[in-house]
């Protein structure tokens, strides 16, 4: 918008914007800058948790505003690395939410059995704990040999950990409890070798897993799957991005394929809802019917 004298016209703005909307503006500028400088796209992330994590990084850097943080991450790629770690939430555990695995055992495994070859996409797999959990369960059900699991994440650093399949030994007590609650049939310790403070998982579990970088925000579908697992990833996206990713899952699922979401994620408020029927209400397991 330009007036005849060449001076840009000034739109009316209130003199003192409240702190919140100013901060929101700064967040938009930072995510835009990060996207154009580094290609990481956080522009459609859910604002409340994005704000929180940016403020945390800002304090960690000893800075006084989001704008100052923007300046630093644009000029200093090491600061960007630190921000990236703060922005990727990597909370996971083996057999996390054991009842989910129970429900997969009882409601999904029988469906998977009907296919001669089974492709599973675990989107947002983080350091891989839940992927190995799925592999263990499939092995116990005698299905693992005809499965291929594609485990993807945006973050190459966590994938590198996932590929190794080495987890802290201290966590195994918790995980054993989860495994048993999930309906595990063997001794959990059969699946790993303890080595000093680490548990090294049997490499056989990894044979049919492909770990690969995939960005749900920018990348498209890469196969047709019988099951897609994406738990507690969508909650970090805003509604538009959630819609886009759910559409991507729809396009990537075979008819009668199964979608598994996090315990408090739901298709109810989304446009893809009519494409699915509910397989298990509490554990958010859906089957694509259209």
């Amino acid at each position, binding site marked *: 918008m330009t007036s005849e004298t060449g001076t840009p016209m000034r739109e009316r703005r209130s003199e003192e914007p409240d702190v919140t909307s100013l901060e929101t503006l700064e967040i938009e500028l930072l995510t835009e800058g990060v996207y154009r400088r580094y290609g990481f796209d956080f522009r459609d992330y*859910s604002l409340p*948790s994005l704000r*929180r994590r940016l403020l945390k990084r800002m304090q960690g850097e000893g800075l006084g505003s989001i704008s100052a943080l923007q300046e630093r991450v644009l000029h200093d790629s090491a600061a960007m690395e630190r921000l990236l770690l703060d922005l990727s939430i990597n*909370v996971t555990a083996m057999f996390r939410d054991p009842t989910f695995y129970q429900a997969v055992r009882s409601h999904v495994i029988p469906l998977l059995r009907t296919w001669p070859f089974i492709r599973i996409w675990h989107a947002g797999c983080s350091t891989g704990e839940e992927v190995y959990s799925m592999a263990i369960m499939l092995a116990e059900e005698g299905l693992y040999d005809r499965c291929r699991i594609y485990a993807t994440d945006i973050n190459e650093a966590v994938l590198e950990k996932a590929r190794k399949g080495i987890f802290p030994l201290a966590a195994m007590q918790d995980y054993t409890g989860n495994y048993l609650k999930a309906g595990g049939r063997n001794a959990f310790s059969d699946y790993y070798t303890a080595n000093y403070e680490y548990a090294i998982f049997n490499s056989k579990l990894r044979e049919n897993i492909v770990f690969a970088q995939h960005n749900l925000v920018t990348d498209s579908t890469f196969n047709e799957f019988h099951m897609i697992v994406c738990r507690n990833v969508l909650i*970090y996206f805003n509604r538009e991005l*959630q819609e886009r990713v759910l559409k991507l899952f729809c396009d990537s699922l075979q008819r009668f394929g199964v979608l598994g979401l996090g315990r408090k994620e739901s298709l109810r*408020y989304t446009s893809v809802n009519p494409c699915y029927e509910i397989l298990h209400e509490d554990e958010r397991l859906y089957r694509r019917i259209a």
Partner: protein
Amino acid sequence: MKPRRRPALPLPPDPDLVVIGCSLGGLQALQKILTRLSDDVDVPIAIAQHRHRDSSSMLTDVLQRSTRYEVSDAEDQEPIRRGRIFLAPADYHLLVGDGVFHLSTEGPVHYSRPSIDLLFESAAEAFGERLLGILLTGANRDGASGAMRIRRAGGGMLVQDPKTAEAPAMPTAAIEEGAATRVLLLEEIAEAIDSCCVRRESEGVR
């Protein structure tokens, strides 16, 4: 005619959301408040009660018996609606966005997930002066900094009088921070909610 002005330290007139934080002893305190709440109040209520990560629907069921509000665990993207009580689900943080709730699994804050601070902070950002916060009994410091954020954003903040709290540490921390608009006995809190959540029909223009 009713007086049109409210008492000295004002609470937000007709807030659009009430957020409540509580920990040890919280269930009993919540029951007391909810049973006393007047029948024609329907402001949406979001609650972060510290709970174990494996906790079942027990909390929902118990609270449901104390109120005619519909009580449920909040889901991601669930619209914030009147006549509803939304609980922070076990093992998730509950965040308030623009008309909807968001969930997060980021690390515990003050060893807690759900965290009261996160609920309060996000609600303060989203609702500003249209927010009423309430901090009840609890044994740690969660909620104090969130309560300050509510105050700074122009919202009102009721804090349970530590004398009436099963665990006084949490309300005490918030009072020491200077976050309380009012410090009230547990029995007075429902009435304070009633008094600012005026019914639209009876009170006209504001």
